[in-house]
């Protein structure tokens, strides 16, 4: 076994690998860029080597510097994590040349699977099911009908040069195939100047389901069942689970066998993932193979109890797999939610800054479920614009899917992040989504269910009750403490006022205390809007999460102080809550509503970022849809367009400016 390994990665995956290495008694070397000096992975590793400036191309992607770091520290092997150099065959060869072991497959396998066409060919040769289609070009409408008949309807008629849905037609019968071919061809000609047309099987309600495999250098291989990753936004996975709610035992076995056949075909030696697309009738077709550890590997670990990183290290060290297919049992259900530093209500734009608060939910096994959080950040960490915006992977396990979903909802409720925007409200809304709960998924789920993007849900009847009750409990404790200040004219008699009004956003909810003492732990009988409830909690002022019971329901409500009140969040619903005596509530209703400043004549910077270019000049007239400016954040260029016809009055920013969110870029007449 290796004595020392280097982890050529950063963030959560570097921390994840270090944990297993430590468990195995292997010492660890972290590498880091200038932007990551204070990063958690650097702190965790036994040694750390600075490998270059912030830009990944000059640090985490620099094979030379990483190899140099290995030599400098005497690391015998390199774990690449995912991304960066994990699927770079030249890097593996570079390591091999220096006698350093790459903890992953051999370069040949990486190369073979790295090319889309080659990998499909190898897959087909290994009798792996691929999407049926005609590899050549279609001559005319008759040819299209003939090919479509051979493939079997429905089919997708696609422009070779196509993209963005243009030049694509689904045909369910011959007439449609004929018409679709003509339409696609003319559309392709006019849109792309290239009218070449392909036909392949149209996958109805496609799901993304992948098989985790493990293989060693001695010809042994096992599969660890599947993961379903259909919840994606723009091809980026957001939520994954194992097993899939859709796959039966027979399909699983068939998929597993084919995945292993493919692995054998390329002499695969490590952990790897074979991705399939699965249609509504459980027909599955090979997509591609990922020759590395996947982001979502923890869900497989949770249902199999196998540490994939440990297996990768053992295989790389030449050990034989100690596992046989018969040893692999899938137990219970695991879900992973990827926590991203992005603003879900601003079209998921990246968000950067310091994590002023970062309190993940309590980890470990409790009440029959498990919470796991793979993270590479800590409170005080800086989320920079240089790297991937994923900051944590929150996983839950329970004996069944409903339990895992419920545990995830609860864990998300307890996850406190301040200082940046994040997608927890979106994930929480997803966990409450009926179609998700029923497991009726497809890769189109988010586009279909959130066609207009995401907005924070207003509290529903239950949310209103829970948030009002918690607001009351929080205020009473605050009040009770102040009622015991020294210097009072008369000692506090212990009396508390019975009648209150909770202002929840703009709604006034009557609340009454029926019985109970305001103290810690709290046990109060109250009525909220006439409904009797008992509140039980050990919450203390200053705690970020109010955990306890509201009626029969166990809740975890996040509490953030605001002026004269608290902002409460629970199950994706948030409200500003202020608790008033009835007379003050009456006067509060007299207060004018302050209008938000008019921003319709301003172009605001949608996220913190760098102005790349300004496309207009002062005095210029622009039409709706024209580009006004380009702002870059987290390596993504965002084009800001005019949403109506207007005239530019004044430019407030220039290329090269670093802007905060909502900074005014330009003003219109």
């Amino acid at each position, binding site marked *: 076994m290796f004595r020392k390994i280097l982890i050529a990665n950063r963030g959560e995956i570097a921390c994840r690998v270090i944990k297993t290495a430590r468990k195995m008694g292997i010492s660890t070397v972290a590498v880091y860029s200038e932007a990551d000096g204070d990063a958690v992975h650097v702190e965790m590793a036994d040694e750390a080597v600075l490998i270059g400036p912030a830009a990944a191309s000059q640090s985490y992607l620099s094979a030379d510097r990483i190899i140099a770091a290995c030599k400098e520290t005497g690391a015998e092997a390199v774990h690449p994590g995912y991304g960066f150099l994990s699927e770079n065959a030249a890097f593996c060869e570079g390591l091999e040349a220096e006698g350093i072991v790459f903890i992953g497959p051999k370069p040949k396998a990486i190369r073979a699977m790295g090319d889309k066409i080659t990998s499909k060919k190898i897959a087909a040769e290994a009798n792996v099911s691929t999407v049926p289609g005609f590899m050549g070009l279609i001559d005319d409408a008759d040819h299209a009908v003939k090919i479509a008949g051979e493939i079997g309807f429905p089919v997708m008629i696609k422009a070779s040069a196509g993209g963005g849905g243009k030049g694509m037609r689904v045909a369910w019968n011959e007439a449609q195939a004929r018409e679709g071919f003509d339409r696609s061809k003319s559309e392709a000609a006019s849109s792309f100047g290239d009218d070449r047309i392909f036909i392949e099987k149209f996958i109805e309600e496609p799901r993304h389901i992948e098989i985790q495999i493990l293989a060693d250098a001695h010809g042994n291989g096992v599969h660890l069942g599947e993961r379903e990753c259909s919840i994606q936004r723009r091809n980026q996975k957001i939520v994954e689970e194992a097993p899939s709610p859709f796959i039966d035992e027979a399909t699983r076995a068939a998929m597993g066998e084919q995945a292993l056949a493919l692995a054998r075909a390329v002499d695969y030696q490590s952990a790897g993932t074979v991705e399939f697309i699965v249609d509504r009738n459980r027909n599955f077709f090979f997509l591609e193979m990922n020759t590395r550890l996947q982001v979502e590997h923890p869900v497989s670990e949770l249902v199999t109890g196998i540490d994939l990183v440990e297996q990768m290290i053992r295989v790389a060290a030449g050990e034989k797999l100690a596992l046989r297919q018969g040893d692999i049992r899938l137990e219970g259900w695991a879900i992973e939610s990827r926590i991203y530093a992005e603003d879900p209500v601003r079209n998921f734009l990246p968000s950067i800054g310091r994590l002023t608060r*970062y309190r993940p939910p309590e980890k470990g096994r409790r009440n029959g479920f498990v919470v796991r959080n793979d993270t590479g950040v800590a409170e*005080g960490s*800086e989320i920079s614009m240089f790297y991937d915006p994923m900051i944590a992977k929150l996983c839950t396990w329970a004996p069944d899917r409903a339990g895992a979903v419920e545990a995830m909802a609860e864990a998300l409720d307890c996850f406190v992040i301040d200082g940046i925007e994040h997608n927890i409200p979106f994930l929480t809304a997803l966990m409450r989504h009926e179609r998700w709960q029923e497991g009726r998924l497809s890769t189109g789920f988010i586009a279909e269910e959130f066609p207009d993007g995401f907005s924070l849900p207003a509290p529903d009847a239950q949310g209103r009750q829970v948030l009002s009750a918690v607001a009351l409990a929080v205020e009473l404790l605050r009040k009770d403490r*102040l009622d015991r200040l020294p*210097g009072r004219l008369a000692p506090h008699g212990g009396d508390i006022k019975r009648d209150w009004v909770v202002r929840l956003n703009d709604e006034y909810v009557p609340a009454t205390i029926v019985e109970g003492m305001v103290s810690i732990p709290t046990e109060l009988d109250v009525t909220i809007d006439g409904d009797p409830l008992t509140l039980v909690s050990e919450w203390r002022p*200053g705690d970020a999460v109010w955990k306890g019971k509201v009626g029969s329901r166990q809740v975890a409500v996040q509490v953030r102080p605001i002026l004269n009140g608290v902002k409460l969040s629970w199950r994706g619903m948030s409200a500003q809550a202020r608790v008033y005596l009835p*007379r003050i509530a009456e*006067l509060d209703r007299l*207060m*004018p509503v302050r209008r938000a400043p008019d921003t319709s004549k301003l172009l605001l910077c949608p996220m913190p970022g760098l102005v790349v270019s300004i496309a207009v000049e002062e005095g210029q007239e622009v039409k709706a849809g024209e580009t006004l400016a380009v702002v870059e954040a987290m390596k993504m260029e965002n084009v800001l367009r005019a949403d109506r016809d207007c005239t530019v009055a004044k430019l407030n920013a220039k290329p090269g400016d670093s802007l905060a969110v909502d900074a005014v870029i330009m003003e219109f007449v």
Partner: protein
Amino acid sequence: MKEVLKELERRREAARAGGGRKRIDHQHAKGKLTARERIEVFLDEGSFEEFDMFVEHRSIDFGMDDTKIYGDGVVTGWGTVNGRTVFVFAKDFTVFGGSLSEAHAEKVMKVQEMALKNRAPIIGFYDAGGARIQEGVAALGGYAEIFQRNVLASGVIPQISVIMGPCAGGDVYSPAMTDFIFMVRDTSYMFVTGPDVVKTVTNETVTAEQLGGASVHTVKSSIADSAYDNDIEALLQMRRLIDFLPSSNTSELPEIDFHGEPQDDPALDRLIPANANKPYDIKGLILKTVDERDFFEIQEAFARNIVTGFGRVEGRTVGIVANQPMVLAGVLDSDASRKAARFVRFCDCFSIPVVTFVDVPGFLPGTAQEYGGLIKHGAKLLFAYAEATVPKITIITRKAFGGAYDVMASKHLRGDINYAWPTAQIAVMGAKGAVEIIFRKDIDDPEKIAAHTKMYEDRFLSPFVAAERGYVDEVIMPHSTRRRVARALRMLRNKDLSNPWKKHDNIPL
């Protein structure tokens, strides 16, 4: 009921009606509460004891003897805020536009005197048209009597003013002499002479909002300490402020129940960026030092390069002063010096310990600052820290350069506990400037300059030279800051230090 008793009730009804339904509705339509409603919101429910409800003016000129209204435009009395005594007066805009008559002034003077005699805070709610012109010099006399009482009470009891409508002419100077002024956005303004007079005298055209609105006084003039969106918000925040303050300069600090020992906070070890020129938000450190992240900031919108405000540590009030690296690198300029000086003096008056966080690159250079009197403004802060006898705890997080090091509650100004983080750089100036002066002869040799710079950085840009001399009591881990501050404050509870007897000092005003 006996007829006389009924008569009292009738008279009370009449007094409570103020200027009548129509005027009250008008007040509400403008988004403002009435004087009595404001007092109701501010004080504990049912705790208000009113004085002089039946006072009327004594003016006979201009037909005034025909119009008399109970209360004469101001409601006065006392009550409690969370059980502690507070004296109040509220200008009643529905009665003679809240204008000040001789009788009106006497009502205010009475509560001022009672507040001082009984050592309890006093708060005034302003919403008035200035002096009652019909009363002439009697009104002027009334103002001056109020001013005199403001001054006598200054430093003995906390005095707070909330501007909740117009406040002009003679009305502005009483608030100006109190400890804090707060405003309500959109409905309040404050100036010595209004837009009409301004137009006549200087030919400037301005609106009342532009001349003296909340945005002017919180951002530009620093007259106001904070502004709120509406009356309710402002009044409830005044309750919060009162909870932080001792009742007088001889009262104990208010102390609330506090749960749990202060814990280490590893996130603070990451606070200081690797690059010494990169800013970070000092408020992050303040929120992690005070209890429950509860911080009442004073003058948040003005001179943002320094942060001042109240928090609690282990349940007891502290005043926080901190350079803010996010704004102008935390430099000390005239505005920042004045802002912090006044805050430190308030804390010293009322025995509120001062915790100072230092990350200051020096004083701001330039003609604008020098012409503006930076020397004397900077001296105010120096003076305020030096004369203060309250417990003073100082933590240097990063830069403490030059004269600004001395000013920011240094050991030499009787700092009780002076800590530095390992990231501290306590030096006469930064490396570049120092090397260019000390090694002027090598200025054309970049290699030598680089070597000198490295030497200077290693030796002097650290807390250890100061620690060797005892100028810092201890170099502490950032994560232990809250615990260290809490323990120091405990130790200093019985601090006994006084300055030599004097009539008063002569701070460079």
